[in-house]
């Protein structure tokens, strides 16, 4: 009878001995058993725990990465929006003027507006519409002004690709076709890129939208490439323009001559 239950009794006694004592004692015994008899089991459990922990961390990092990507995308969009706003847009005064006529022959035609220097307009003031750059003031009379539009052959403007930040020069041919020239050959401009005014412009503040690239032209042998633009400003049917009462402060002509400065 006793032999039948001997093992059961022994195992029960061993269990009770293991259970007796304080918490610290049980922890020490568990630690000892885990490092000796049950080492393979405990080692495997720890390994599995580590795998689960790594998996959890991986998921957390994956989610964090996704969040950051979304955040980055959001910030990029915000940055693009901010880049459309001129640096000192809030400080620039402006006046709205009506387009009242044209000056010059077809192909060299300028715009006449019903506001002049009595409204604060000066020569070289930038002119925009709700869509984008229109041109600049070339004559400011008392009650009217003449605007040189951006599709005039004499109009030049420093611009840049908003995405690739490649600089260029906006100019137009006699037919009114607007293009961006002087683009370096290694520039990464592409069709669909938005062109904005650059900091190199002597007339416009940086960041005003000009147009979108409709075609990239690379002529073999040329050291620069060219891009045809579709201006945002719609001259046909234009009724009002916004004259920015703004003058660039830097007068590069007054800078000291470096050659003379270096001379003894």
């Amino acid at each position, binding site marked *: 009878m006793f032999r039948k239950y001997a093992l059961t009794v022994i195992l029960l006694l061993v269990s009770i001995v293991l259970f007796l004592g304080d918490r610290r004692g049980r922890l020490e015994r*568990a630690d000892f058993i*885990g490092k000796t008899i049950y080492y393979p089991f405990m080692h495997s*459990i720890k390994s599995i725990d580590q795998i689960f922990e790594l998996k959890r961390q991986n998921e957390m990092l994956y989610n964090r990465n996704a969040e950051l990507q979304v955040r980055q995308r959001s910030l990029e969009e915000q940055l693009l929006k901010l880049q459309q706003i001129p640096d000192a847009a809030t400080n620039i005064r402006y006046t709205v003027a009506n387009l009242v006529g044209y000056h010059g022959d077809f192909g060299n035609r300028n715009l006449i507006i019903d506001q002049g220097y009595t409204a604060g307009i000066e020569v070289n003031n930038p002119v925009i519409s709700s869509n984008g750059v229109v041109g600049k003031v070339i004559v400011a009379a008392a009650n009217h002004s003449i605007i040189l539009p951006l599709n005039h052959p004499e109009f030049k403007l420093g611009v840049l690709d908003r995405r690739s930040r490649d600089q260029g020069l906006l100019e137009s041919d006699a037919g009114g076709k607007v293009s961006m020239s002087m683009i370096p050959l290694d520039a990464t401009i592409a069709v669909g890129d938005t062109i904005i005014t650059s900091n190199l412009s002597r007339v416009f503040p940086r960041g005003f939208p000009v147009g979108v690239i409709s075609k990239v032209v690379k002529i073999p042998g040329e050291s620069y490439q060219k891009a045809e633009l579709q201006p945002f400003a719609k001259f046909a049917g234009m009724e009002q323009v916004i004259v920015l009462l703004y003058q660039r402060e830097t007068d590069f002509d007054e800078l000291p001559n470096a050659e003379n400065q270096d001379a003894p």
Partner: protein
Amino acid sequence: MIIVGFYLLGILFLYAQILLGGSLSIIGVIPNLLLGYIIYTSTRLSLNFSVLLAFLFGLAYDLTYPLQLGLGSMTFVLIAAIVNLYHPSLNKEKPAYVALGILTINVVYFFFMSIYHLIAYKYTGFLLLRLPLSVVYNTIVSFVIVTVLAFFNRLGIHVRDDQ
């Protein structure tokens, strides 16, 4: 050789308990998959083998909860002995009797666990809130495990190979 098979099956249940137990929890009650295994094993093996496996896996399970070291192995050995001794007198043709037997085993198991909680943590919330759910949930899980194991072995749970 059957003892080796049950030992390997026990390892399977032990890892299942550790890896899957948490995901099977209901309102914080983690089912004890090993309990069903111990009950089934004790109906199939002799007393000594049953209590030996119960002790080994009970101790392994205790190592994952070191503060209750010895308690799991002790209750498992007791349960293995009780099942081994009294299951022949149970009419296993009727599932209700089997379920009742498993319920009794679960009550025994959680009786010991409750005493431990009372002594160690002075925590009566376990008894009032989670004990009834633990007993019911574990009874269901144990019944399913015993039934599935019996089915897969193409044996009735009343058959003992070593007799």
